[in-house]
């Protein structure tokens, strides 16, 4: 008897585990890799826009007013990381050049008393520094990022203190080039936990010579005032539409460009992501299916949800979310083409759509609900 019960028990247990496995623990790794033709900020050679910031940085450097810490803040994808790596490469390649000016047999050659000031922070991709910064293999550069969580298979939502604690040992070793720069780039600095921020403060309070800390933050307000006061804050403005348009040319069909520019709201990173073939299709279809909020073709929505709602399509689902929220907020602000019926609805109704949509997405996220429901539910809000 006991045998039998044991068996049944085991079986039950197994089924339960399987289910849990599938829903909770077997999440596909989030693919945060950009589309193949889009280089990561580390390997991006060209900076778009932000020339005044570049001049400001050069001015500070030439006039020996370089701080120990920078906060680069602004929209995601606007060019903060690109600028940070550009600055790092520039400083490293300068270090190497000054070292090269020593003679073949160790004697120091006469150096120009005042090196000619550079007009930009550009470093050629043929410079050896470029490849090493891109691969993460520069001994004087430390990159701190949100770590990959092996338990959930996703990038963690916050920057834990263990990551920040890597900075002190790095700063306390000599640079690999004599009196060279040591640079730490903290990405997503606004997701630092409270203890991470306090740990970072310890370094900002007593920075070593020729050390530079660049904090990249999408929401500078999330940083402690004490961190703020020890860094030079450089806000990155959204890019002008023309700059984005130029970068989009040839990447997607021309008729989609105005829509993508409007959705990107000044973020080049977002625009390039939206312009990627599959993503642009998704955006077009998602908006098309809305049909001004009446007579929704549920059959088509079902097919659409089945297609994009399956596992491993995290990027598509995120872009779907961003698209729907953008439409909803466009309707509230009357800043979207089409959707005349929804736009003419009373403000209360429009706000309700927007809020309901947010609540729906939050619920799907926190409850880890079926992704097909995430898509279908969003349309229900508009109906």
């Amino acid at each position, binding site marked *: 008897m006991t045998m039998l019960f044991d068996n049944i028990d085991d079986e039950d247990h197994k089924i339960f585990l399987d289910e849990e496995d599938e829903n909770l623990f077997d999440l596909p790794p989030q693919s945060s890799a950009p589309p193949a033709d889009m280089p990561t900020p580390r390997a991006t050679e060209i900076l778009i826009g932000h020339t005044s910031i570049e001049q400001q940085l050069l001015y500070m450097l030439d006039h020996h007013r370089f701080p120990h810490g920078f906060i680069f803040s602004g929209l995601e994808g606007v060019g903060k990381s690109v600028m940070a790596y550009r600055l790092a490469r520039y400083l490293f390649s300068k270090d190497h050049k000054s070292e090269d000016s020593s003679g073949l047999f160790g004697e120091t050659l006469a150096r120009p008393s005042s090196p000619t000031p550079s007009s930009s922070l550009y470093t050629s991709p043929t410079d050896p520094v470029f490849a*090493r910064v891109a691969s993460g*293999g520069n*001994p004087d550069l430390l990159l701190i990022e949100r770590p990959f969580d092996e338990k959930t298979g996703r990038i963690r939502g916050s920057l834990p203190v263990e990551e920040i604690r890597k900075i002190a040992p790095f700063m306390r070793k000599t640079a690999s080039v004599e009196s060279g720069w040591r640079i730490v780039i903290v990405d997503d600095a606004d997701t630092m936990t409270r203890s991470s921020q306090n740990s970072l403060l310890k370094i900002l309070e007593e920075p070593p010579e020729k050390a530079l800390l660049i904090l990249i933050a999408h929401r500078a307000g999330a940083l402690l005032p004490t961190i703020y006061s020890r860094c030079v804050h450089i806000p990155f403005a959204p890019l002008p539409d023309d700059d984005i348009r130029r970068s989009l040319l040839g990447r997607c069909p021309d008729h989609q460009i105005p829509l993508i520019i409007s959705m990107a709201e000044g973020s080049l990173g977002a625009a390039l992501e939206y312009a990627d073939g599959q993503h642009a299709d998704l955006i077009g279809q998602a908006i098309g299916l809305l049909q001004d909020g009446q007579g929704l073709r549920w059959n088509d929505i079902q097919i659409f949800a089945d297609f994009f709602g399956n596992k491993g399509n995290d990027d598509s689902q995120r872009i779907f979310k961003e698209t729907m929220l953008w439409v909803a907020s466009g309707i509230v602000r009357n800043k979207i083409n089409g959707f005349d019926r929804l736009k003419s609805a009373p403000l209360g109704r429009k706000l309700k759509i927007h809020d309901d949509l947010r609540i729906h997405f939050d619920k799907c996220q926190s409850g880890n609900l079926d992704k097909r429901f995430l898509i279908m539910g969003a349309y229900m809000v508009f109906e």
Partner: protein
Amino acid sequence: MKFSIDRAALLRALAHVQSVVERRSTIPILSNVLLKADDGMLTLSTTDMDIEMTEAIAADIAKPGQITAPAVTLHDIIRKFPDLSKVTLELDPSGNFITVKAGRSDFRLSSLPVSDFPQFGGGEFPTSFSVRAADLRALIDRTKFAMSTEETRYYLNGIYIHAAENEGVDVLRAVSTDGHRLARFEMPLPEGAAGMPGVIIPRKTVLEIRKLLEEAADEISIKLSANKITFEFDHIVLTSKLIDGTFPDYQRVIPAGNDKVVEVDPKIFSSAIDRVSTISDGKSRAVKITLNGKTMVLSANSAESGSAKEEIEVQSETEALEIGFNARYLLDITSQVDGEGCRLTLSDASSPTIIQDTSDPSSLYVLMPLRV
């Protein structure tokens, strides 16, 4: 690139260089070894961005070139090949793979671009001198146990090496301390080391170089600059960053006025401390030493386990004295004393004690007492 080489020679070199590679690095290029084949020599390099290790071995070079390959995997493969086999490595024409062949085995390993590999940059080394391997071994062994691991006083996380003068003789001095104990080792100043900058060699570098010294030949050439140190011997070059900090003025904590001298057999002393400290509890592992004429009583008390007492014979001219020490710290020091006698120079129960080997004046240890 193509070359063939004896399995044993390649395995030996790979075993050396792969010990620097961090097992859990998030930067892919750091888990790779850089292989350079040129002029009858194969050069292998690895780095963790703080230390760079390079070893050159003779190889049969068919076509010179450079490539990177995953260090640990390559080491495992070579290790599993049968002894006395000849290994052939070749770069795939596509440039993305390296093939490793021995006998009938054939492996294809993925490779990363050579340009991604970190460079420590040449730079100048104004100071260079050489020391005997045995001396460098002694220097590290006598001091490494006292290195601190505490992050806040980062400038103590290594061995401080500098040129100094002791009673009119120029010496090369190594010092390490964690605030509770201090170890100082001296040797005659090697030629060329005069005027060297005082440098702090980081903990990991100390341990890596010590591993290599196990099988090192006679002479080690050391080169120094303000930001890097290089050790060179038997075709191995280890270059390391240094700790960017100021070592505290350790001379101040070496007491000059201690007048009570006690001599004891280090082996008897060590084993007695070891036995008695079985009883001591807590982190401090306190052992009390009571001196009375020619006897020394070691005792330990614990509220939970009980008490222990052991008497040993000593040579001493001093009056009675009671002093407490951390047993582990005391053992660390007495285990460094190889000679016949261990000399303790004390002052009182709250002042630091000097411990020395009676037959070897090159090393000196200072230990802070515990209140017991």
